[in-house]
C-alpha cells in the first residue's frame, strides 16, 4: 500500500468565515484511472478525484501514524485545480503506481477532494512531528505538506525570538461586532519579513489551487496564504503554551476593557462579545497605541541617529596599563539620511534652519523634513526615554548621554529603533568581537614533525600543547587585571584610545572561567584537530567567544594537506607492485589514505561510484604490506593482517579485484559453512595479508574478530553502519585495529547522524557524543539549515572525508568517457542449492544425447541456471510472472545480483543520476520493477515486448524530457536494445549476460551516443563461480575470434563436448 499525504490551508475569505486545515491523500489502491473520450468541456465542472482516500477513518489512521493522540474533525469536500489529461488529474511525483497515464499537454481542471478537517492543535502537532519522527514507510509527504512544514519552522523561530504582540481583531457574529483577543506576529522591518517573501515565492502551486464549487479559481495569493498561516499558528501556539506559564493575568482586578482583553488572551475561546461603547473606545486607543510599531521616516529618507563618543583623552595614570572610564560627553545626533545613498546625511540643524515644506540638500529633495524629524524623535523617545530630554528645546539636534546610558542605548534600544525604521550610525567597535571579553586559544606542537604511528608508535601521545587566555581588546588579562577591570563597574571602558565593552553576562562567564577551566595542558592530534577546526568566531566556551585562535608549528600545514591536499600528496608514486596504473586522482586518494594511516587517523574515501575506491584501498594494502615487511625485517613487529568487511554480495568482487591488482597479497575469505571456528581462526588468518568477510559474519563471528590484533580494518559500503543502534555497528566498533578506513559512495543517505556513526567508527569522539552531535549539528542543519553549524561541520569533517564526483573537473579529465565494469556477485545458499541440483540432474542426461535433442537440452539447462541466478523465485514460480502475478514472497536476500543491484542503485539515486537496467527475461523485468519500486518508493518504468508502440514512444519521451520522470528504467534486451535514444541515463546495468557482447554493446550504446554529456558507466553483473563467470572468461579469451566461434546465438553451446560443458556449468568450489 502506498499513500501520499497532503495538507491544504484554506484561510477564511472574510471576517465571518472560518479558516481550515484539510488533510487529504492520494492512494494507488483502486482501479487505474479511466480514459476520457471526446473533447473536454470549455468550462469543466468539478468531478470527484479518481485516486484519493475517501474514507475518513483511513485518513485518521494516517494522521495517527505521526501522532497517536491526534484529534480530527469531520470530512469536508473541497475543489482543487490540478494539471489534468485524458486520464484525469496527474498524480503527484511522490505517488508510486504502475498506471499507464496520458501525460501529454496537461490542462487545469477542477477536482473534488474529500479532506479531513484538522483543528489547529492537531495541525501544529503534526507539523511539529514531521521533522522529528521518521515518516512511516507506507506514507510519502506531498510537496504541499512539506512546504507548510517549512513555514511552520519559521513560526517556531518567530515565537522563540518573541516577535509577536497581543492585539484585538475585529470580527462579526450574528448582527453585532465582536472582537477576538489574538497574538499576532510582527514581521515588518525584521529579518523574518525576507523569509516570508522567500517562502511565498517558493510555494508549490498546489497550495494555491483552491477553486469554488463551480470550479472557478479562487485566486489565492501566496503571500496572503503564508501570512495567514503564520498568524493562525502563532496565535494558537502562544495561547496554548501561555496557559502553562506562571502568569498573573487571572489576578487582574476591575472590569475595565483592558483587563477583559488581557484575560481573554489565553482563553480557548478568545471572542469578546457584548461590547459596549467603552470597549469600542478602548479598541481605538489600543489601535492608536499599536501604530507605534509602524515604520517611521519617509519613502525617500530615513531618520538617522548617529552616536559620537567623547573626545579621546590619554589614560589619567599615564602608564597605558589601566582602563579608563570617561563619565559622559557622548552625543547622539539627529539626522536625515537619503535612502538611495547612505552617505547623504542632513544634520538636524539644517532641517530646522530651512523651510518646513521641503529641503534641498546635496541635490536631494527632502519633503516635510521638520515634521518627519519631529514625529520620528517623538517615537524614538518612547523607545529610548533619554531622547525626550532634548525635545524640550525648540530645535533639538542631539542629546548628550552618559556612558551608562550609551551602553543601554547600544545594547537594548538600537536594535528596536532599527526595526522601527530608524537608521543607526554606530561606532564600529560596538559589533567588533575584538572589543569584547573573549578567549584566545593557542595550539603548539611540541614535536618537530607530525606523529607517525607506523614508525614510532609511542611518539603519538599528546604531542600538542594547548593554552587559553582571557583577553579584552587583544590585551591578555591576568586575574588581578581582570579584578581591577570589574571594580570600575562600567560597561564601557577605554584603553589606549580604544573603546571596549564589558557585558555583565560576560563578566560573569569570565569569573566562572577562572574558577573552572584548566588553562593549559596537552592533547593528541585528533583532539587538536577537533579544537582547531571546531572553534570559530561563533564558538562560545563557557559563555565567552573565542576571539583569537593561534595554531603553530606543523599543524596549519598538516590541516591544509588533509583538507585540500598539497604537493607531498600529489607527487607520491603508486606502490611498485600494483598490477595496474592508478589514475592521477586515484594516486592522490591513495597518498591521502597513506597520510592518515601514518598519522593514526581514520579516513573515509567517499568517491562517486565507478571512480575506483577499491583500487585506491588495494594500493594502500600493498604499501602497508611493504612497510610491515620492512619493519618485520628489522625485527620490530610481526606482520598483522588487515580485515576487510563488505556486503556478502561483494565478497567475490573483492577477491577478484585483489587477485587482479595485487597478486602478491595473500587473501583469505572468511565465508561459508566450512569457515574456520574459534580454535583455528587466529592461526588461519595469521598466514594472510588480507581477510575478507561480510557484515553478517562480522556480527555473528564477532568474538573471532575481536580476538585478533588487526593491522587495519576496512569497511566497504560503510553506510551499512550508518545506524549506531544496530548490532552490526556495535559489533564492528568492538574490533581493534591500528587503522580504520571507510569506503562508501553515499556517506550520508538520509540523516546527518549517519555521518556521526561512521566517524564514531573512524575517529571515536571526534564529533562528540551522539547527543551533543544532534543538538550541535544534526537538528540545526537538517531542520533549520543553520549556516553556522553547517560551515563548522563541513570544516571539521573535510580533513577526514575525500569525496570526488564524476563531474569534478579534476576527475573528469582522467576518466574515460565510457567506463565498463564487471560486478561480481555472491551466490546465496538458496541459489547454490538449486543450482547444484539442476546441474546434477541435467548433466548425465545430456551426455547420451546428440544433435538437435542435445542442443535443446543444453539450452534448457542454461535457461534454468540463468533463472536461478537472476532470482530463485523466477525459477520456482509455478505460474508465469507478469504485472498482475508477482509472487507475494519477499525477494530480498535471495539473489546475490538483486541485492547488489539495490546497493548500487542507492548510490545512483543518491546523486540524482538515472539508470537503464537490461535483462533478457521479461519475468525478471517484472520482478525487478516490483522490488525496486518497493525498495526505493519511486516509480520504475518498464519497456518490454508487450507494450504498444505509441506508449513506448511516450515512455521514452517522458524519461528523456520530464525532470520528474522515474529515474530507473528496466528494459528487455530484445525490445530496448536497439534504436532508442536514452541519453538521460548515464548508468547501464546488464543484470544478466548475453553471450554475444555485440548485443550488449548495442544496448549500452542507447546511453553512450550523441547527446550524452556525462561519463557513462556500464555495469555487467556476473555471479561468481557460476556459468556466468565461466562464459565471461570464455568470451574474454576468444574476443578476437568471436564472430567465427560464438556466432550470434547460443547455438555454439551445443557443440561443446561433455567435459567442456561440465567445466562450464559446474559450480566452482570457491564461489566467492
Amino acid at each position, binding site marked *: 500500500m502506498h499513500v501520499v499525504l497532503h495538507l491544504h490551508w484554506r484561510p477564511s475569505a472574510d471576517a465571518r468565515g472560518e479558516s481550515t486545515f484539510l488533510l487529504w491523500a492520494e492512494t494507488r489502491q483502486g482501479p487505474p484511472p479511466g480514459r476520457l473520450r471526446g473533447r473536454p468541456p470549455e468550462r469543466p465542472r468539478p468531478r470527484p478525484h479518481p485516486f484519493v482516500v475517501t474514507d475518513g477513518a483511513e485518513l485518521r489512521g494516517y494522521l495517527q501514524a505521526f501522532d497517536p493522540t491526534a484529534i480530527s474533525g469531520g470530512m469536508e469536500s473541497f475543489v482543487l*485545480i490540478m*494539471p489534468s489529461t485524458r486520464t484525469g488529474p*496527474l498524480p503527484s511525483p511522490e505517488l508510486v503506481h504502475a498506471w499507464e497515464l496520458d501525460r501529454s499537454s*496537461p*490542462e*487545469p481542471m477542477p477536482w473534488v477532494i474529500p479532506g479531513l478537517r484538522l483543528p489547529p492543535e492537531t495541525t501544529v502537532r503534526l507539523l*511539529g512531528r514531521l521533522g*522529528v519522527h*521518521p515518516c512511516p514507510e507506507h506514507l510519502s509527504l506531498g*510537496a504541499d505538506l512539506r*512546504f507548510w512544514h*517549512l513555514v511552520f*519552522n519559521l513560526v*517556531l*523561530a518567530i*515565537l*522563540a*525570538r*518573541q516577535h509577536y*504582540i497581543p492585539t484585538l481583531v475585529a470580527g462579526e457574529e450574528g448582527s453585532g461586532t465582536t472582537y477576538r483577543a489574538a497574538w499576532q506576529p510582527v514581521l515588518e522591518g525584521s529579518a523574518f519579513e525576507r523569509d516570508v517573501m*522567500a*517562502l511565498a515565492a517558493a510555494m*508549490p*502551486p*498546489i497550495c494555491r489551487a483552491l477553486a469554488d464549487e463551480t470550479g472557478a479559481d479562487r485566486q489565492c*495569493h*501566496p503571500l496572503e496564504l503564508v501570512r495567514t498561516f503564520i498568524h493562525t499558528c502563532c496565535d494558537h501556539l*502562544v495561547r496554548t*503554551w*501561555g496557559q*502553562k*506559564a*506562571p502568569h498573573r493575568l487571572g489576578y487582574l482586578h*476591575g472590569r*475595565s476593557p483592558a483587563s477583559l482583553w488581557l484575560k481573554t488572551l489565553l482563553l480557548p475561546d478568545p471572542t469578546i462579545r457584548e461590547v459596549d461603547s467603552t470597549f469600542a*473606545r478602548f479598541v481605538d*486607543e*489600543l489601535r*492608536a*497605541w499599536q501604530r507605534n*510599531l*509602524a*515604520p*517611521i521616516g519617509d*519613502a525617500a529618507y530615513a531618520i538617522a541617529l548617529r552616536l559620537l563618543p567623547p573626545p579621546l583623552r590619554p589614560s589619567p595614570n599615564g602608564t597605558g596599563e589601566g582602563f579608563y572610564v570617561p563619565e559622559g560627553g557622548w552625543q547622539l545626533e539627529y539626522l536625515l539620511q537619503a535612502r538611495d545613498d547612505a552617505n547623504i546625511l542632513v544634520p538636524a540643524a539644517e532641517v530646522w534652519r530651512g523651510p*518646513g*515644506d521641503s529641503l534641498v540638500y546635496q541635490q536631494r529633495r527632502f519633503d516635510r523634513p521638520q*515634521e518627519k524629524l*519631529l*514625529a520620528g524623535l517623538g517615537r524614538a523617545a518612547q*523607545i529610548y526615554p533619554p531622547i525626550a530630554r532634548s525635545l524640550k*528645546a*525648540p*530645535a533639538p539636534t542631539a542629546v548628550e548621554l552618559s556612558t551608562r546610558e550609551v551602553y543601554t542605548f547600544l545594547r537594548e534600544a538600537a*536594535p528596536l529603533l532599527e526595526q522601527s525604521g530608524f537608521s543607526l550610525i554606530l561606532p564600529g567597535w560596538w559589533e567588533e568581537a575584538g572589543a569584547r571579553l573573549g578567549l584566545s586559544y593557542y595550539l603548539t606542537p611540541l614535536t618537530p614533525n607530525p606523529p607517525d604511528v607506523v614508525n614510532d608508535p609511542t611518539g603519538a601521545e599528546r604531542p600538542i600543547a594547548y593554552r587559553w587566555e582571557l583577553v579584552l581588546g587583544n590585551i591578555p588579562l591576568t586575574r588581578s587585571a581582570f579584578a581591577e577591570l570589574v571594580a570600575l563597574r562600567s560597561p564601557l571602558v577605554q584603553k589606549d584610545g580604544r573603546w571596549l565593552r564589558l557585558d555583565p553576562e560576560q563578566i560573569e562567564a569570565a569569573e566562572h572561567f577562572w574558577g573552572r577551566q584548566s588553562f593549559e595542558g596537552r592533547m593528541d592530534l585528533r583532539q587538536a584537530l577537533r579544537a582547531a577546526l571546531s572553534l570559530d568566531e561563533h564558538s562560545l566556551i563557557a559563555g565567552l567567544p573565542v576571539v583569537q585562535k593561534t595554531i603553530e608549528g606543523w599543524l596549519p600545514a598538516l590541516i591544509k594537506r588533509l583538507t585540500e591536499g598539497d604537493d607531498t600528496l600529489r607527487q607520491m608514486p603508486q606502490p611498485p607492485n600494483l598490477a595496474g596504473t592508478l589514475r592521477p586522482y586515484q594516486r592522490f586518494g591513495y597518498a591521502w589514505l597513506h597520510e592518515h594511516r601514518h598519522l593514526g587517523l581514520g579516513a573515509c574515501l567517499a568517491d562517486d561510484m565507478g571512480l575506483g575506491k577499491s583500487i585506491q584501498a588495494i594500493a594502500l594494502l600493498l604499501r602497508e604490506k611493504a612497510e610491515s615487511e620492512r619493519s618485520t625485517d628489522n625485527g620490530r613487529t610481526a606482520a598483522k593482517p588487515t580485515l576487510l568487511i563488505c556486503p556478502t554480495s561483494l565478497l567475490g568482487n573483492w577477491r577478484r579485484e585483489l587477485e587482479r591488482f595485487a597478486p602478491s597479497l595473500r587473501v583469505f575469505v572468511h565465508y561459508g559453512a566450512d569457515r574456520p571456528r574459534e580454535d583455528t581462526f587466529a592461526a588461519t588468518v595469521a598466514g594472510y595479508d588480507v581477510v575478507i568477510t561480510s557484515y553478517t559474519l562480522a556480527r555473528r563471528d564477532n568474538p573471532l574478530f575481536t580476538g585478533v590484533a588487526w593491522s587495519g580494518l576496512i569497511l566497504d559500503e560503510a553506510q551499512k553502519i550508518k545506524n549506531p543502534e544496530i548490532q552490526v555497528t556495535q559489533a564492528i566498533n568492538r574490533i581493534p585495529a591500528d587503522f580504520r578506513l571507510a569506503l562508501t559512495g553515499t556517506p550520508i543517505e538520509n540523516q546527518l547522524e549517519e555521518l556521526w556513526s561512521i566517524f564514531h567508527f573512524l575517529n571515536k569522539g571526534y564529533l562528540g557524543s551522539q547527543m551533543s552531535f544532534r*543538538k550541535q549539528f544534526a*537538528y*540545526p542543519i537538517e531542520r533549520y*539549515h*543553520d549556516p553556522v553549524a553547517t560551515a563548522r561541520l563541513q570544516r571539521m569533517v573535510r580533513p577526514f572525508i575525500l569525496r570526488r564526483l564524476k563531474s569534478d573537473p579534476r576527475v573528469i579529465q582522467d576518466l574515460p568517457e565510457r567506463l565498463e565494469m564487471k560486478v561480481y556477485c555472491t551466490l546465496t545458499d538458496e541459489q547454490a542449492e538449486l543450482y547444484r541440483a539442476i546441474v546434477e540432474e541435467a548433466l548425465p542426461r545430456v551426455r547420451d544425447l546428440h544433435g538437435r535433442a542435445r542442443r535443446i537440452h543444453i539450452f534448457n539447462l542454461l535457461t534454468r541456471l540463468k533463472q536461478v541466478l537472476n532470482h530463485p523465485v523466477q525459477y520456482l514460480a509455478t505460474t508465469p510472472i507478469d504485472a498482475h502475478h508477482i509472487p507475494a514472497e519477499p525477494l530480498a536476500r535471495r539473489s546475490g545480483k538483486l541485492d547488489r543491484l539495490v546497493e548500487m542503485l542507492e548510490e545512483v539515486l543518491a546523486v540524482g543520476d538515472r539508470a537503464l537496467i537490461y535483462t533478457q527475461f521479461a519475468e525478471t523485468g517484472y520482478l525487478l520493477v516490483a522490488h525496486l519500486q518497493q525498495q526505493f518508493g519511486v516509480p520504475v518504468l518498464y519497456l518490454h515486448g508487450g507494450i504498444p508502440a505509441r506508449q513506448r514512444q511516450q515512455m521514452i519521451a517522458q524519461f528523456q524530457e520530464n525532470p520528474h520522470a522515474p529515474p530507473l528504467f528496466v528494459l528487455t534486451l530484445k525490445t530496448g536494445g536497439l534504436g532508442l535514444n536514452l541519453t538521460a541515463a548515464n548508468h547501464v546495468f546488464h543484470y544478466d549476460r548475453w553471450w554475444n557482447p555485440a548485443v550488449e554493446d548495442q544496448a549500452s550504446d542507447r546511453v553512450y551516443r550523441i547527446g550524452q554529456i556525462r561519463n557513462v558507466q556500464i555495469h555487467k553483473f556476473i555471479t561468481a563461480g557460476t556459468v556466468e563467470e565461466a562464459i565471461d572468461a570464455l568470451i574474454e579469451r576468444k574476443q578476437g575470434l568471436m564472430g567465427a566461434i560464438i556466432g550470434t546465438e547460443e547455438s555454439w553451446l551445443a557443440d561443446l563436448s561433455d567435459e567442456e560443458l561440465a567445466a562450464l556449468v559446474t559450480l566452482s568450489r570457491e564461489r566467492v
Partner: protein
Amino acid sequence: MATSLSTPATSSSWSHAWLEALAAFSHPGRLRRGQQFADRRRIRRLEIRPGEINADVRDGDQTYHVVIHIPVFDDATWEAVVRRLASQALYSARLLAGEMPPEVVEVFAEVGVTLFPVAADPETEPLQATCTCPDWEVPCKHTAAVYYLLAERFDEDPFLLFLVRGRSKEQLLPMLRRYRQVETAEPVSMPVPEFKVAPLAAVLDRYWDMGPSAGEVSLRITPPPTPFPQLKRLGPPPFDHLDLIELLAPIYETVTAQAMAWAFQNPEKTP
C-alpha cells in the same frame, strides 16, 4: 484650584480632569446622578461650538434642551499658547501626530489662563448651564448627564477642549505649523517589494515543485538578544497604568522555552 490644574497622567484621563474641575463647583451627589443618566441613546443631540455646547436630553416623554456656556480665550491668549507649544519640539511632535500631550495644561497655566473651567476664576463665571426642565437644582440631572457625555468625548478627541475654548484643531494646527513651519503628519508608506503571481495554467509543469527560494530561508531558532523586543517597541500602553512587560513576561518566556523544546526535540524511540 490645584485639582483642576493637575496634569492628566495619560490621555485617557482628560475625562477625569474635566469631571474633577466640575466637581469643584458642583454638588457632588447631583453630578454623580448624571453618570447614571448619561446614555448615548438618551442624549439626542450634542453640538460643541466655541464657547457653547447645545444638547437635547430625553427624559421619559419629555425632551429638555441644555445649553452650556464656557468663556472662549481671546486671540492674544491663543497666540501666546501656540507660541509656547511650538517652542517645545515634544509638544509639536505629539500634537501634529494627532495626540494631545497631557502637559499642555501647564502651557495654558504659563500664559495665565486655565484650560478647564475653574470656580476661582475672578473675572468671569467659570461656566453657565441652563436646562429647560422644571428642576431648579444646579446642575440638574440632564445637565450633569451632558457633562459626563462631554467627558467621554474629550477622551476620544481632546482637541474638542480647544474648540470649546475658541480654536478648532483645523485652526490650531496651521497656526502651530506657521510657528514651526511644518506640515501635517501622515503615516509613511514604505515601498513594498513587488510580488508576481503567475496564473495556475502557466505553472502546471511545476505544479508540485518547491521554488528555489525555499533554500534561502535559514533559521536560527534562538531566544531574542534582548527580551520582549516588540513590547519594548510598543512602549507602555495608554490604558489602566499597566506594566504590560511585567504582566506578560512569564508568557513570553514560556513560549520561547516551548518553541525551543519543539524545535530541538528528540525523536521518540520506535519499538
